């Protein structure tokens, strides 16, 4: 009798849990897992005749054989890592200021200041950069007026320009986890380390960074993935020189209508981001669970 009650209660419990999870599961399976499975299937087939397909590795072979493709692939990865590192380097002091030095209203204002760029769409923001940086734009003219350069220089379409745009777009996503990680650091730990003979550098390395590590990892993962998958910023700021892998995917799907090749590229990008995130976590000794709780 008692066992019966427990069982009934248990099954009610399970139904309730299933209902609660249903929307998330529908979203996850329907919009993420299924399309990706479909992509995987498409990437492994070759068209031999109209509406006739067979299993093949042609798409992946093309990727390896064609230097442009894997060059772009490696370049995208390296630039993304670089952009993530730059974002971290710029965001850390700012996050430290917001978390530890600013008080009350100043703190809130500074946080809002970080948010303001996101009130404007990414396309408009990036076009704003173009107005500032193009040859006839604001900054080159200013440089001429100040006598730094003789003639207006083209500041667009450089790798550095792409990096600037990417860092600008990503800054907030690094700031939020960093500020929350640093805010939770007890000031007395820093004082204690200082009291025990620590100096600025050793406290940073042994107290602050280990404490903020999950926040650093969370911010870096988000920024890296956003950067790797970004399309608009590299394309607009880098022009034809941008050589960003998402452009290759876009070209295959939309321009060439080669869905098989596009699907293979999409899959390769997924593998790349997973591999680098995994590597980053392994190197820094972080666990994904801890990191996700931070972000």
């Amino acid at each position, binding site marked *: 009798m008692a066992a019966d009650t427990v069982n009934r209660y248990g099954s009610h419990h399970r139904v309730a849990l299933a209902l609660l999870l249903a929307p998330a599961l529908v979203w996850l399976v329907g919009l993420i897992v299924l399309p990706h499975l479909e992509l995987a299937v498409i990437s492994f087939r070759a068209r031999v005749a109209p509406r006739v397909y067979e299993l093949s590795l042609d798409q992946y072979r093309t990727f390896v054989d064609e230097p442009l493709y894997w060059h772009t692939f490696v370049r995208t990865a390296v630039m993304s890592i670089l952009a993530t590192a730059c974002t971290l380097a710029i965001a850390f002091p700012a996050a430290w200021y917001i978390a530890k030095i600013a008080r009350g209203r100043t703190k809130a204002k500074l946080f809002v200041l970080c948010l303001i760029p996101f009130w404007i769409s990414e396309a408009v923001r990036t076009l704003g950069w173009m107005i500032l940086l193009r040859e006839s734009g604001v900054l080159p003219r200013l440089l001429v007026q100040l006598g730094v350069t003789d003639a207006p220089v083209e500041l667009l379409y450089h790798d550095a320009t792409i990096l600037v745009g990417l860092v600008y777009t990503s800054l907030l996503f690094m700031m939020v986890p960093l500020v929350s990680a640093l805010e939770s650091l*007890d000031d*007395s*730990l820093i*004082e*204690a*380390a*200082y*009291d*025990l*003979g*620590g*100096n600025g550098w*050793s406290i940073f390395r*042994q*107290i602050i960074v*280990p*404490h903020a590590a999950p926040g650093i990892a969370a911010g870096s993962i988000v920024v890296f993935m956003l950067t790797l998958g970004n399309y608009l910023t590299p394309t607009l700021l880098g022009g034809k020189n941008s050589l960003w892998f998402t452009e290759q995917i876009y070209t295959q799907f939309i321009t060439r209508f080669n869905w098989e090749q596009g699907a293979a590229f999409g899959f390769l990008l997924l593998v790349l981001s997973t591999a680098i995130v995994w590597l980053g976590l392994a190197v820094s000794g972080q666990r994904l669970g801890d990191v996700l709780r931070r972000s």
Partner: protein
Amino acid sequence: MQPDLEVDRVTKRYAGLLAVDALSLSVDRGSFFSILGPSGCGKTTLLRLIAGFLMPDEGDVRIGGHSMRGVPPNRRLVNMVFQHLALFPMMSVGENVGYGLARRGIGRSEIAARVAAMLKRVGLPGAHDKRVDQLSGGQRQRVAIARSLVLEPTLLLLDEPLGALDLKLREHMKIELKQLQADFGTTCVYITHDQSEALVLSDRVAVMNAGRFEQIGSPQELYYEPRTPFVAGFVGANNRLLGRALRIDGDVVEIATGAGLTVRARKHGDIVVDQPVEAFARPEAFDLSRDAAELPPGAQRFAGRVESLLFDGANSAVLVREARSRAEIRIALPQTGRFADLAVGETIAFGVEPARAACFAARSDGS
């Protein structure tokens, strides 16, 4: 002998407000000095001035005879046990204790040996590889103390380190801390708002109020011979009576309280007739008797009704309402068990010798 710590007329202001007001103190080598005061009295500021987290606006702090002007905390031979201990959660127990040694550039094997020896001395042998969150409150306390003592500081500062512990553990750690201090012989400065901690642990105590020291003395002096009404009211339980000086007879003042009670008490400081005064008599200064004739001959005698019984083992007391003035007085119950059957509503006689009550000129702020 050169005192280990000398604070010389140190002043610190926050936005124009005096937090520490021209304080001076000196602490002898190997002694345990406490600063006792209510929260907001400036004791934490004083401790931070000594540790070097704050610089004095005026005056100087000398440690081991050297002026600490312009010396940052990491260059002072002073270590601090923080209020919430501030153990590094990202490090093991051994790394916590070895942190300061590593910062001094001592070799790895030497650090390991010293850390192991220190952990053994504080009763935590083998805790080296444990994480901080695996320790109990008392064990953390010991790690925090070990982390400071392993550096062999001239001076150990303790910022209410027992505040976060529950009562039972606090009592236990109080004794343990006293034993550790006796064992290591390190000069300690301890700040607390808990008078029992200060009285039990210290060789000397400074009672601090509003940025100044009210009195510096041994725990016994503070308890039996308070020099200011603040000390009388703050250290130990005390009955406080406000009134006017009726008559002054040598060093005994006769006081009339507003409610019409007349009490005689020993005079402290200058008091003139008709001046507002406050008198203090400790609960244990009273003699209690069911028969007024049994009270000591020199005592002033009163009678009252038992209002409530506050049974607390050795600290038991009764609240008695004096018959004529309706003043409520707290009286300690003698440990003999003679009054074990005392009941609420009973009428009882009580008395106090004038020498065991203290009379001060009333403070101008009226508090």
